[in-house]
């Protein structure tokens, strides 16, 4: 069951990501990104991370993608113009990305015994819902990072105002 879910939604995610890259119209790309986000949410859920799955749907598919689509609509962006791309991307970019992918796969595969397996619906098996765990940690141990995020958001808003305002 887990394996089947993983394979189906993993494939959908990869296909969505590829479609995202190859589509020429921004709206099509944005919509395929929604597909990627939703299938990732299913993967998170099947790995026992219910909170992450819910946050993924609400934050990414809900808030961020809606904003993307709005911006694309407002800018009235047409089909993108293709350039040949930089030579550095082909010489260093693709081998570099492949090397990092291989390295990470190697690390995870060598240590797969120690890492263990994930079960579908983690809290059904050992009765610890990670939602309550996360909320406890967030408001006790990680209270300061949680609160200081407000400064981060303030800086981002201030920056948006600065960049959007007209020079006088």
């Amino acid at each position, binding site marked *: 069951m887990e394996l089947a879910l993983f394979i189906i939604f993993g494939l959908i995610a990869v296909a969505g990501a590829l479609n995202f890259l190859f589509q020429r119209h921004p709206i099509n790309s944005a919509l395929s990104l929604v597909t990627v986000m939703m299938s990732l949410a299913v993967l998170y859920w099947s790995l026992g991370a219910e909170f992450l799955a819910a946050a993924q749907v609400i934050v990414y598919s809900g808030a961020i993608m809606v904003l993307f689509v709005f911006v694309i609509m407002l800018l009235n962006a047409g089909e993108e113009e293709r350039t040949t791309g930089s030579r550095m991307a082909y010489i260093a970019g693709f081998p570099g990305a492949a090397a990092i992918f291989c390295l990470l796969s190697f690390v995870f595969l060598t240590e797969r015994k120690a890492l263990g397996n994930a079960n579908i619906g983690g809290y059904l098996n050992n009765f610890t819902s990670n939602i309550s765990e996360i909320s406890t940690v967030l408001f006790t*141990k990680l209270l300061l990072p949680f609160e200081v995020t407000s*400064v981060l958001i303030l800086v981002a808003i201030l920056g948006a105002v600065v960049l959007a305002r007209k020079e006088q």
Partner: protein
Amino acid sequence: MSPNVIALLPEIVLTITGVLVMLIEAVLTPGTSRKSLGWFAILGTIASGAAAFYQLQFGTVQAYSGSIQIDAFSVFFHVLIAAVVLVTLLGSLDYFHGHATHAGEYFALSLFGAVGMMLMTCSVELLMVFIGLEISSISTYIMAGFRKGQATGSESSIKYFLLGSFATAFFLYGIALAFGATGSTSIAAIAAGLGSSATPLMAFMALAMIIIGIGFKVSAAPFHVWTPDVYQGAPAPVVGLMSTAPKAAAFAVLLRITFSGFPGFEPRWALLIGIIAVLSMTIGNLGALLQKDVKRMLAYSSIAHAGYLLVAFTAFPKDAIASAAFYIATYSAMNVGAFAVITQVSGYDETSRTAEDFTGLALRRPVMAALLTFFLLSLIGIPFTGGFFGKFYVFSAAIGAGHIWIAVLGLANSGFACFYYLRLIAALYTKSLKDVTTAGEDIAHPFTATTIPAGIGLTLAAAATLILGILPGQVLQLAQRAGTTSLAPVEKASMPVIEVK
């Protein structure tokens, strides 16, 4: 006062000042001078530095369930960051003359950026480090693009934003892997969990990712490609700030993570950082040699200096932290000073860009030329300047740990670096052809007098560079104390009740 408030005092002071600056800016009539806001921001920065000094008496204190730790190490970097921001603010008070549109936001962003950097230096919890890193990065991304009229400004900002976000992703991935390998994001708990970790390879990958992320932020080779373009396009005072304070904060984070979080992996990461150090020194110095634009040259020079600094990581822990902290202080003083001079000489529109434009500066503005010469000599590492002692301590610490090869490469590099610094100094004292033809009436370089606040800022930077070169004792002592306290284990009772008399 509760220990939590005391531990966070410098950040609280800065945040309140920043919010007030932001709110007052909104009610001021458009077009009026924002200088009063700048002075207010300067007061806030001084107060925050004083608050950091005040924390020194409490020894090592952990607050907010062990997210942040106040010790001599954090105080050292807090004061350093406050000083850099102070000099930058003083230098940019009159920078926006006639371009007053966003001066208020500029001051607010500097303050918020400083909050982020300070949080980075005192946090012992990787998630807290990440939030601090983001606050400091986002404010510098925006400040890099402050001259919206110029295409290079926007290029600088976008490039910095895209590559910086990419780097942050690496850093975040490192945190996630560290959590996976040790079950915690707290630096002390990572060190404790490392020995019994069932996935040591993953823990090492975590550290490598974190080093890549920090490497981007401190512009160490091979993660340096953004530096010249960003420094060229960003306003000069902003470059002075972002080439020093965020780097100091990032180095503080790297010192904490490597020496306190992953001490068990020392031989491996020392080799990795050693390679990055040699690459940075060599690429930085070779690149600087080819530059005509002075800001680009200083960008490559800052890559080389990141390399010298990384040499310190190969030394024994206590020497390494002390010498690195001292080097960061000297580098910040001389680099922020050099960019303050460039701000004064070339102004908002950057009339002087290349070495040719700086030719004959000694005839037009002798004091500025003398100051720039002094800062450049310090960047070379001539005795009686801060740069000399900085390099001396770093290389002797590396030799002390038996890493002679890296010290030799570093010395060879700093000898080689003399060439391009001296070339610029020589240009300053050469009579330029333009001056001869226009016979004193220099149209290309309109003389703008240095204002009092900018003069104070320059004096502070020059004095700091000089004092670090002649009487380094006090600062070195604090740096050594920083090294000792940041390595000492914290007792379990980490929240003593502090009585304020």
